[in-house]
């Protein structure tokens, strides 16, 4: 059933489970719980479509050493289906090393086993419309002990969770999906050990109470932390923030522009070559994971009134190896098959990279985000080592010759050409020890018996692959856990 809270007069609703946020994590979890016979309220702040009124609630500030407005507002979509409404559909699974404790990160890693998460892989692939018989995650062979070819699969066209699952949810007797329903407060019982209920508001001034046996925040990598920090009426530093960990360890995947390359082996390079470091390379240097993508040009495209002449000159030069070599000495001269290197680099968990609250408040009185996204020395090392090692390896294999940007080679220069991949992770990290995390291995908030968190905010580390598939697998796992209570 679909309920628009803007048109409702109810003041209190009771369910087995309330799930806040209707993105990939929330929708997957609600469906899993309904399958276990639970009555579920799926509570979405936005409506069925984009609206400025809803999206503007994500406005905030960016104050870190990587200041990117997109990371605060534009990466996320605040309406039914969440960020799946604009994701690209890239899916992959974390490497074994991603689940290992890495001493050089200084914080504990994943407290659960990789194979436990992967036990939900086939179901998750079905959810994001990737054929389970395609074995998409086997790394193709590469004659290198330092890099592997990337193994990923595409949800193509990308599964829009709203389009795919809205009708099923509308007709479900177990799921009540609320739209225009904004979670604004978490109310603890007197002993502080559990939630009595939550306060949800519509956009017309109405206030509602949701009571449930279990509550799950699935609001996104930034917003999960924000709502916990804002719930400071009963616990001064916010709920679940006993160790001051809520909002800390904000992680993205760095999108670093490494430089350019000229192709030596057209067949090996293809249209795009994507390399992941091996575990041996990562351990040898004490660095994180990542992907370096060599994107080849198919054709030189010229602009301006002389574009025909310019194209003829370029085509002519590209036909001669010596003329091409000479031209490259003076300009960034590319021929078809050459290209630029983009990347997706793991960020180390860093206590100083964090979601904070600003003094400015939104229309519901919640303090807005102040994102202090920080690149650490460990991150700079990962970025530089991966670039230099990849350049050496592609030269050794005679795949391509790489020209690295100066900030990769010169460690006195700041790494400037960097942006987010819109993979926001880590702000309510999972840990057995409450000193180093916000949720336990079952994704339950430490110290609160009926509050759980779903989504990438529980990731202790971010790996070198897109996070959505892992988000979906963890949501299925959480559905199994809460469904069994």
């Amino acid at each position: 059933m679909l309920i628009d809270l803007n048109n409702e007069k109810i003041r209190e609703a009771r369910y087995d489970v309330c799930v806040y946020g209707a993105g990939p994590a929330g929708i997957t979890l609600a469906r899993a719980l309904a399958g276990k016979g639970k009555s579920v309220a799926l509570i979405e702040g936005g409506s069925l479509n984009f609206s400025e009124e809803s999206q503007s609630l994500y406005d905030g500030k960016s104050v870190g050493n990587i200041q990117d407005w997109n990371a605060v507002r534009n990466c996320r979509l605040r309406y039914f289906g969440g960020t799946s409404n604009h994701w690209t559909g890239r899916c992959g699974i974390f490497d074994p090393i991603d689940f290992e404790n890495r001493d050089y990160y200084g914080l504990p890693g994943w407290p659960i086993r990789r194979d436990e998460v992967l036990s939900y892989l086939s179901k998750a692939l079905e959810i994001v419309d990737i054929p389970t018989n395609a074995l998409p995650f086997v790394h193709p062979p590469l004659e290198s002990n330092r890099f592997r070819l990337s193994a990923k699969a595409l949800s193509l066209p990308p599964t829009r969770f709203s389009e795919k699952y809205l009708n099923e949810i509308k007709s479900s007797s177990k799921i009540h999906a609320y739209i225009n329903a904004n979670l604004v407060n978490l109310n603890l019982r007197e002993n502080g050990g559990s939630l009595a209920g939550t306060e949800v508001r519509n956009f017309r001034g109405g206030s509602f109470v949701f009571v449930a046996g279990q509550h799950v925040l699935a609001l996104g990598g930034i917003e999960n932390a924000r709502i916990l920090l804002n719930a400071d009426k009963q616990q001064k530093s916010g709920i679940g923030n006993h160790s001051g960990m809520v909002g800390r360890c904000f992680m993205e995947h760095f999108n670093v522009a490494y430089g350019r390359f000229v192709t030596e082996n057209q067949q090996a390079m293809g249209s795009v070559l994507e390399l992941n470091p091996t575990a041996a390379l990562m351990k040898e240097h004490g660095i994180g994971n990542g992907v370096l993508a060599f994107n080849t040009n198919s054709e030189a495209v010229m602009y301006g009134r002389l574009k025909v002449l310019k194209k003829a000159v370029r085509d002519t030069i590209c036909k001669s190896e010596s003329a091409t070599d000479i031209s490259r000495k003076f300009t960034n001269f590319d021929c078809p098959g050459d290209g630029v290197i983009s990347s997706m680099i793991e960020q180390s968990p860093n206590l100083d990279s964090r979601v904070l609250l600003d003094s400015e408040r939104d229309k519901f009185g919640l303090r807005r985000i102040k994102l202090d996204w920080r690149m650490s020395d460990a991150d700079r090392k990962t970025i530089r080592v991966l670039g230099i090692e990849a350049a050496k390896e592609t030269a050794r294999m005679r795949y391509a010759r790489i020209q690295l940007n100066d900030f990769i080679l010169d460690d006195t220069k700041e790494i400037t050409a960097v942006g987010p991949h819109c993979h926001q992770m880590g702000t309510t990290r999972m840990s057995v020890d409450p000193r180093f995390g916000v949720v336990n291995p079952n994704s339950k908030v430490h110290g609160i018996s009926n509050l759980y968190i779903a989504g990438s905010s529980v990731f202790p580390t971010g790996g070198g692959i897109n996070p959505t598939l892992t988000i979906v697998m963890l949501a299925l796992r959480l559905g199994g856990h809460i469904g069994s209570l």
Partner: protein
Amino acid sequence: MKMTKKQSPIQNRRRFLAALLTFPLLLSSIAHGREKKFLAIPSIGADGFVIVNGWVMLKQDITGYKE
């Protein structure tokens, strides 16, 4: 009298353009090459790689490289 094969206007135009662009580049390259210094980053130079103007290359791929 020496006979030459007649070429199409398009071929002539391409040759002309190639010569027009390549010749000054060639001259400049020679002049530039005389002063060129190879930048070898120690950690890279030690395992057979050098860096020239940001390009990461095997030593044997660089004409004129000397330790």
